[in-house]
């Protein structure tokens, strides 16, 4: 990977972190489009509690942190880094599996070629 690509990716990550940490506390707390429609159309009460509503990160906060800005911002930082980690793991694994499959096909071809 070229150095300027690394710089580009690093800068992108820093901007993402800055948005999640410093801008997210300013986000609108109003119900989102679906929540609003559910209220107006009268099906909001069919929603049930999230099974993981007790998660320490539930609703983009950190359990036990009283300062709302800090709580939201820190949960944003954790979320961005975790998403990055899961993303790298999944795409990395997909790439390895693809290479394995390609390698097996090459081996099969070599075998069938030498057998023939």
């Amino acid at each position, binding site marked *: *990977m070229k150095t*300027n*690509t690394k710089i*580009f*990716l690093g800068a*992108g*990550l820093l901007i*993402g972190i800055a*948005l*999640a940490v410093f*801008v*997210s506390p300013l*986000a*609108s*707390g*109003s*119900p*989102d*489009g*679906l929540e*609003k*429609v*559910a209220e107006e*159309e009268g*099906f909001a009460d*069919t*929603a*049930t*509690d*999230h*099974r*993981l509503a007790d*998660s320490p*990160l539930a*609703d*983009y906060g950190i359990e036990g942190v009283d300062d709302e800005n800090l709580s*939201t911002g820190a*949960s*944003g930082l954790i*979320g*961005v*880094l*975790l*998403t*990055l980690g*899961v*993303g*790298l793991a*999944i*795409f*990395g694994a*997909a*790439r390895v599996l*693809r290479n394995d499959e*390609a390698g097996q*096909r*090459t081996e099969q*071809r070599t075998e*069938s*070629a030498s057998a023939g």
Partner: protein
Amino acid sequence: MHVPDGFFDATTSIGTGAVAAGTVGVGLRKAAHDLNDRLTPLAGLVAAFVFALQMLNFPVASGTSGHLFGGALAAVLVGPWAGMVCVSIVLFVQALLFADGGMSALGLNVVLIAIVPAIVGYGVFLLLRSVLPKTRSSVVTASGIGAFVSVPVAAVAFSVLFAAGGAVDLSFGSVLAAMVGTHVLIGVGEGLITAAVVSAVVASRPDLVHGAHHLATGLAPNIATEPITSGAAS
């Protein structure tokens, strides 16, 4: 638009779960074909960036907010297949750790927020790109409009699914009108944010934008990563 638990019956939740798992699985296989030392970390970054942008709810009307879906944005940046996987990863992390989007509704959310917006957004993007001049600003315009369209289309998809398997029987027309009306406004935000991000990336590193590969001269968009299978070997 994160669907909570309880809005849909079990059949619809399981059915969309199966469709989501199958489609994202195919998407990951297709995306894997292009993954290399640049696209792999870029795809991870796009997922992380969409997570950050989804935290930023913007006001759209009195007492209503919306946030980026990100399907169209991710599709333009890393391709529709990798893009839908990126947003699915975001939805997975949100449901599992942030209690955002029901666990039983994960399939619905992947269909509505990742798959439909990635396919619709990228489809509109390709259509516009083919008729617009071959310039960077056309890529920005096409991605913004594709993103704008993707959100009300997802709202239509929600309404259809709700009529088929919603927890309560409501007039399809009434739900559809309310969903599309609100999400056209959210779509405007989606389009503006998508255009802004694509514009910034295209300005600095157009070679990293999947949807701008056609601008590069002398470079094939996808050079096959596998050795060419020659029939002559047998």
